[in-house]
Every structure is written in C-alpha cells, then in structure tokens.
C-alpha cells in the first residue's frame, strides 16, 4: 500500500523534472537532418568509408542480424568519430549510422512491419484508482491533452491518435494482465507506463511481441543499458545513477576536496541504485562517504535513529534518497538533529523525486529551504515562465479542457505525449509508419521538447546512446519566494 503510493509520487515529481529538461531550441534542424539520415542510410554506406566510425555502424546494422557482437568496440570508436563526423556526414550523405531493429526474433515479424493507417492507438498502464491515483492522474490528463492538441493541429498526416490507458493500481502483478488485454484490444504501441517493477514485468512480453514500450516513466538505468537485449524498450526519465553523479560533482564544488558525506537512502532498488552510483562518483570526485543509513520503503515514522547515527559523524553534506512522504519527514527530523547538534550544518541534497511543491514545501514547512535537487523541465507554475511559448500552449490547453490537477505533473504527461508524437512523426517520415519504424525512429532521434530547460534535449542514438534524457539542472529550493533557483548551468556531462 504505502510503498506504491510513495513511489508514485516520486515518479510524478521526477517525471515533471525529466520532461522539462528534454526540450531544446534547435530541434527542427536536428530533427530533419536525422530524418534525412535515417532514410538515406543505405545510400550513405559507400560514402562513409572515410569516417571510420560511421562505416562501422552501417556495416554492423546490415551484416549483424542482432548487432550484438562488436557493440562495445564500435561504441568507443564511434564516440569520437560520431561527434565530429556525425553532423557533417549527416548533412551531406544519407544517414549511415541509423540503428535498426531485427524483426526476425519477433513472434510475428509481419505484424511488426505492417503499416499503421488511419488510427494509431497508444496504450499504457498507470495507477488510475486507489491511493496512488491522486498523485498520478494528472500524468494521464497531460498525455491525453497533448494527443488532442496533436490531433487538432494535424501534426501527423492522415493519422488520428487515440489513447487507451488502463489501471494497474501501481501493482506490478496486475500490469501484465492490463498490458495483455491492451494487446488483445489492438493497441499499436505503449508509452509512459509508470513504475520500475511494472515496466520490468511486461518488458519480456513486449520485446517478444515486438511492440514498442516507449518512454517508461521511471529513472531506472535498466531502460538504456541493454539496447541489444531489449531493443523495444526505452525510458523517459534521467536515470537515477546519472542524477547521483551530477550531485556528487556539484557537491565537490560546494564542500571541496576531501569533504565528508552522509548517505540516507530508502532500502529498495531505487535507493540502492543511487547509493552505488553516488559512492562511485564521490570516490572519483575525492569526497568521502563516512556514514550510510537506510529506511524501509513502507516506514512512516520519522527516521530518528538513522538521522541520529548520521549526526554522530557530523558529515559536511547529506545525500538523501527517501520515498514519497518520507521526504518531508526526513527534512523535519534533520532540523531536529541540527538543533541538538548546534555545531553541525550540512549541505543537503535530495533526489528530484522529492522535488514537488507538495513534498518540499507544503508538507515540509520551512525545513526544505536551501535543499538542493534537480530538474530538467521549465517550471510552469513559476510566473517568470508565463511567456515561455511551451508553457503558454500547455496552460491554454489545460484551461480549455477545464483540468484541475497539479500543473507541474500535467506538464510531465504533456511532455511524454509530445515526445511520443515527435517519435511518430519521425517514423512517418521514414516512409512507412510501422512498429519497426517507430522504435527505430525513437532510437535515432534528437529534438527539444517545448518545456525543456535550455541545454536539455531528447537524444537517442541506437546502441551508443540508449537514454533519452541525461541532462539535469541542479537547483535549490527557496522557501520565501516559493521558487527553485538554478545553480549553474545544466549538467550535460553524462550525455552520450
């Protein structure tokens, strides 16, 4: 019960952040060049002989059916040649490095390559009833809002978009049943399934049936680290390990070399991913993790013992990864501990799943002031962003539809919808709109969502870059102004 609820709230918060970070200004240019690349891949084969990296990708794509063998070797060489040669080859030649998926392993290759005409139905499994629904229903609203916008403005020629979002109550044992019934009902693709265990539960089925499982609304690194094994699955959020690394880097700048850090993480896969990634990054940055404490996912009571143990070591900073309502409880307990240890005033970093206004301000009172976190989307609630064209479009559609949910969470759904439609558009440009072309489009696309912070982009590149968003803007919560303040510029160091 509890666990799911919190996890959902967490996801909602993250989702908003992620979506925000995706947009960029020059998406049109990169979008079209990429599209050009994809269609002219075959023709470009001969001309890419000069740029070693590119050749390798094309030969790989054509000769290897599964493309597994020399992945890693290719990636490293590609990395350097791509960035320099990529843009130029793309402009002059047909795309040679476009990743393709092999449909021979599908249970029904014909269905995977069959053209989709008239109506395209997007399915999803989200918590729509029960306690998590309140936190997550704005995601569904935002998603469907964007689909309506796309239909009204005919963004996809000759295709009407439909959505079929069914309830799995955030229960990973129900998600397979929901997804099965959606497949039986004939949905074409899935997008925005919420929950790491939920997505894991259906990943095998969807990859076997070769149905795109796009934009999973979770930050698990699983969605991008095995492109060859699960080509049909992609994620929407910045992975937790990248977030942890970005925090470690920023923290180094704040407390200096040799600074001490205390870790407070939830005892789940979510927390463990953070813990491991942060410890690794901290070691690289010259920071010392001096104490680690955990809290159980279902624990409601304030973490008195844990914070007491951390306070005993008096670290210079704390990296906190609690779940849902544990976020404000942690902050309050920390303030109590600081009062009992008056010579201790650590810098506090919190996971961005705790960054919703509800968790960092409403339920936490003043204790959230000064806490560092991150985001990658423009805050639609901030009056300073009222003139942002993306925000304007969202707010107009939101008010026209008479929606009442949390605007920031609706923005998450809106951006997932936008990402999905951009993918479909690119797939259309390849000539045939089919499940195969859709997943290939998803993995060969660069564009900037309308609500992204400057410097944030959706960028995927076959096996080389399996993550859609990898840039985060570190920000600090300022209670008096009720706003987040950006710290520095967006950190793109983890972009691949």
């Amino acid at each position, binding site marked *: 019960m509890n666990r799911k609820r919190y996890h959902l709230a967490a996801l909602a918060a993250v989702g908003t952040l992620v979506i925000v970070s995706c947009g960029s200004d020059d998406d049109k240019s990169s979008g079209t060049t990429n599209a050009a690349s994809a269609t002219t891949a075959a023709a470009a084969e001969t001309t890419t002989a000069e740029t070693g990296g590119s050749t390798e990708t094309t030969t790989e794509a054509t000769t290897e059916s599964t493309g597994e063998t020399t992945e890693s070797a290719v990636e490293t060489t590609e990395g350097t040649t791509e960035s320099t040669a990529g843009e130029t080859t793309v402009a002059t030649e047909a795309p040679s490095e476009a990743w393709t998926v092999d449909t021979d392993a599908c249970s029904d290759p014909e269905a995977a390559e069959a053209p989709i005409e008239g109506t395209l139905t997007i399915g999803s499994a989200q918590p729509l009833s*029960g306690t998590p629904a309140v936190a997550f229903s704005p995601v569904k609203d935002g998603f469907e809002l964007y689909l309506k916008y796309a239909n009204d403005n005919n963004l996809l020629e000759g295709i009407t978009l439909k959505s079929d979002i069914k309830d799995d109550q955030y229960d990973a044992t129900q998600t397979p*049943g929901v997804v099965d019934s959606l497949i039986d009902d004939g949905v074409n693709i899935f997008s925005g399934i919420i929950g790491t*265990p939920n997505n*894991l539960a259906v990943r095998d089925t969807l990859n076997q049936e070769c149905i795109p499982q796009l934009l999973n609304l979770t930050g698990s690194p699983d969605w991008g680290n095995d492109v060859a094994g699960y080509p049909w699955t992609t994620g929407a959020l910045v992975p937790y390990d990248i977030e942890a690394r970005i925090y470690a880097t920023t923290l180094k700048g704040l407390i200096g070399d040799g600074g001490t850090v205390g870790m407070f993480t939830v005892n789940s896969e979510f927390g463990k991913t953070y813990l491991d990634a942060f410890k690794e990054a901290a070691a690289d940055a010259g920071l010392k993790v001096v104490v680690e404490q955990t809290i159980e996912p279902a624990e409601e009571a304030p973490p008195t013992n844990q914070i007491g143990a951390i306070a005993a070591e008096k670290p210079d900073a704390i990296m906190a990864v609690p779940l849902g309502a544990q976020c404000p409880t942690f902050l309050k307990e920390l303030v109590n501990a600081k009062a009992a240890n008056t010579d201790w005033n650590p810098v506090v970093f919190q996971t961005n799943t705790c960054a919703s206004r509800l968790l960092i301000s409403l339920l936490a009172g003043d204790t959230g002031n000064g806490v560092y976190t991150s985001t990658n989307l423009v805050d639609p609630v901030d009056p300073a962003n009222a003139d942002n064209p993306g925000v304007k479009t969202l707010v107009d559609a939101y008010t026209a539809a008479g929606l009442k949910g949390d605007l920031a969470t609706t923005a998450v759904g809106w951006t997932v919808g936008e990402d999905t439609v951009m993918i479909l558009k690119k797939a259309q440009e390849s000539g045939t709109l089919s499940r195969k072309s859709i997943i290939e489009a998803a993995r060969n696309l660069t564009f900037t969502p309308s609500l992204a912070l400057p410097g944030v982009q959706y960028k995927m590149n076959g096996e080389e870059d399996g993550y859609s968003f990898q840039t985060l803007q570190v920000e600090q919560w300022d209670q008096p102004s009720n706003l987040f303040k950006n710290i520095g510029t967006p950190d793109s160091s983890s972009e691949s």
Partner: protein
Amino acid sequence: MPTQARAIRESSPLHWAIRTAGVAAIAVFAIYLASTAKPSTLGNITEACTLAIAAVGLNLLFGFNGQISIGHSTFAGLAAFTAGYTVNSWEWNPYVSLAVGLILCFLLGLALGLPALRLKGPYLALVTLAVAFVWPTVAAKFLDQKVKASTLKGTKLEPLTWTGLSVKGKDARLDKAIFLYWAAIVILVISYVIVRNLRKSRIGRALVAVRDNETAAAVMGVNLKLTKTVTFGISAAIAGASGWITAARLATMDETTFTILSSIKYLLALFLGGAATLVGPIVGAFAYFFVDDYLKEHAPNWDWLPGPLSKGPVASFLLGVLVIAFVFVAPFGIVGFVKGQVRKVFVIAPRPLRPGPTTAEQAMPTEEPRPEDQRPEIRGEYT
C-alpha cells in the same frame, strides 16, 4: 405448509446423473473458453484459479479444521520463489521445482503447525499474520544476497511439446496462455479432489471433530498433534501450488508480490464462497476476482459519483462494504446460500448404513428363550 422437498438418495442413479451433468457442463465450458477466449481473458481465469487453489488449501485448514491462518501468502511466496530461483539460477526443470516447492511448503506448514498446537484462535491468527508480515523481509534479503537483483524472474513456463501448442511464432502468446490456463485448472482440480477425498474419509471426520471440540475429539481417540500439524502441512502445500502457477504466469516477482493483503484475499474469497464447503472456495475465488476486476474497470467511470470521489479508492471501498453485507445476507457464503435455496427443491438424503426395519416384526427380533442353565442368576429380591 411448504411443499416437502424431494429427497434424492445419495449415490442413487439420479444423484450420479446430477453430478455428471454438473461436471460435464463445467468441462465443456472450460474447453469452450480454451478454444475461443483471448489471451488476456485466459490470463484472468488463470489468476482466478490461483486464488481458488490457495482458498481450497486454506479451506482445508480453516474451514474443516478450524485453525485460522492469515499467513498463507507465505507458502505461496515460498513455492514461487523456489520455482523462480531454481529455474533461473540452477536451470532446473520447472516441474521439478513444483515438486520441491510442494515439499518445502509442506515442511514449513508442519513447522508452523507445531507451535500452532499451543495457540488458541486469535493468538494463532496474529502469529500467522506476523509470519506473513515477515515474508517480504526474508524475500528482500534473499533477493539482495542470492539473486543480487531487485526482482526474481518467473519460470517462463512453455507449453509441453506433446500438447501441440507452439512455443515460438505468431500464436505463441495465445498458446502459452492456453497452456497456463490448463495447468492452473488441472492443479485446481487435483487440489479439489485431494481435499474432497480427505473430507469424505475418516480423516475428514477427525478434522471436523477437532474443529468442533478439540478436547472431546482427543478424548474420543483423535491424535490431535498429528491431525493438526499434518493438516497445516497439506494446506500449506496446496497454497504452494498456487504460488508455483503465479511464478509461471508472471515475468518478474519481488518481495511485494506476496503480502498480507494476498492472505486477506484468500480469506475473503473463502468466506464469500462458503467456508467448510467443498466448492465454496472455488466459487468464492472466482466471484471475488471478477467482482474486483469489474469494479476496477468501471468504478472510475461512474459519473454519478461526485468529483474527487471517483478518483479515490471506490473499488476497494465497495468491496469492503460488500464483504460486510455478505455476512448478513449470506453468512455461509454463496454456496451456503445456494444450498439453502436448492434445499427447498430437493435434498440429498444420505445413504443409510444398512437397510432399516420396515415392519414391526423386523424391528423386534424374536429368539428362542435361553435354556434354564444359561439364564442369568437372580440374586436378591426385586421389588
């Protein structure tokens, strides 16, 4: 005066005819479903079957033996994790893992049955609740230490070759669903037959005697220890079979797959159908599953509910109210209710042990009086 219900002799041809007709109808329906239903419908029925299997196991322990357990999800979880781990990490045959899972659950059931001997009603309930509460911790530790991952993979049960169902290709999804459906039904039928035979035998009478009055049963010669612990073991094994099917159905499991809430579901399904009846747990499980499914699907769309109410937990509220209402409307469950109605039409009269007397002469045995020297001695005076 209501018309007398017609009495049908047990094991008479008419009784057999009614029984075979019932079984045949169910078999025909099951086959019909297997040939026409979509994979998701078959999946739903498979899930309802796993609930039914666990309820049948719980019924043996609670309905017939009077030992309450709110911890049966632990046995399902144990068997499921055994199957998932042995098949994925040790490459075992999934059917071997079923056998091993059953044995492990039986042993754990025995182990729990021993302290249960000393605990009465609510104490036993709370102890089993505690066991169910502890299982996720154990499962999480296991995942952390042995599996080194956050989820355990399912057994990915594939159709056996002799069934003719395809493993790969266009129909693989449907065929796998059909195979799991039949596997669940077969296990359900076997569990039902086991419980039925136990119930109808001498052992069954001992079980019920222990439930109704333990001390009296002991006085009459029932070995309490053996009866209670072995019943716990068998009940646990049946619940374990339910867990094995779940491991075959799901692609991933973690520590939240089997929780106290699952245990409560088994109990509610048992109660809804009718505890202490043979068919009750099965009927109750299907009823619970499909009502829950219906409510989940349709409650969010009910427009007559005011605004924020429709987003809230309507389905679970209605289910709770339904359960309470059932206690008053049908305290012996659906099967109890139906039996009550059917009794107005006809009654199964139990077979007499031997033909009874039909005339007065037969009722009074006539014998030759005993010879003088064999009559009992009359001592003293009788007044």
